[in-house]
């Protein structure tokens, strides 16, 4: 019992599941902030998979972890920008429903 530890597949399934939960939210939510939160979930799922592969496939290297770090950094930048945009949209449309800005239409 002491020797049992979760296999690689468990970690991968966890990451994938988190990714698709995020994707589900991303596609169903109308509220932009909620969409942003779903996006963060997706990124976390991907990060888990990166780290898992790093740990189990290439234990000596650090590349997977670096990818995770870079993704976190980019996520931070993206979140900041996205929120700036959302607030600016809110100022203009008084709403942050993603259906509102129709003006993107051709």
């Amino acid at each position, binding site marked *: 019992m002491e020797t049992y530890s*979760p296999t690689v597949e468990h970690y991968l399934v966890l990451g994938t599941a988190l990714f698709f*939960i995020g994707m589900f939210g991303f596609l169903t*939510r109308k509220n932009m902030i909620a969409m942003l939160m779903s996006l963060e*979930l997706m990124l976390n799922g991907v990060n888990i998979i990166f780290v898992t592969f790093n*740990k189990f496939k290439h*234990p000596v290297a650090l590349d997977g972890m670096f990818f995770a770090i870079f993704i976190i950094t980019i996520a*931070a930048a993206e*979140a900041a920008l996205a929120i700036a945009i959302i607030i600016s949209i809110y100022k203009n449309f008084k709403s942050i429903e993603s259906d509102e800005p129709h003006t993107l239409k051709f």
Partner: protein
Amino acid sequence: MKAILFYIFSVLILACGIFTVTSRKIYRAAIFLLLTVVSVAALYFLMEYTFLGVVQLVIYAGGIVVLILFAVLLTHDSGSLLPPLGVKRTVATFALTGTGLTVFLYTILGRKVEPGSGEFNEPSVKMIGGQLLDLYNFGFVLPFEAISILLLAAMVGCIVLAMKFSKTMN
């Protein structure tokens, strides 16, 4: 012990994730997101990636989620409910993501992941810093610089977006 912890955190992550995307109260969704992110950090600790776990905590939990909470405060009345999800859309999306998930699980479980050679040692901060700024030996100095520029650009972009332009400038 580790296995039990892993399963606890896994359940936490998935459950909080599902609540994040389904909760009709956006505050609650944000809090669940915070929980998810913290659980993921815990998972990293469990996998002995301490540095990454710390980064996850500091940036995600301390930065991004807080930012999102501020945005929610700025744009929502307290206690307001998000509109319910459309049934048709939910079903369609569920089918789509379900398909995607099935395909991925099929792929993951259908192939045996060969464990890599070598002994895993918890990476020290010195090692991480060394490889991150190394010009040779698969160093990551170029992505590092690129990310720096990206962050700078994002910062400038946020400032520009947040700036109040006078009417004549519009």
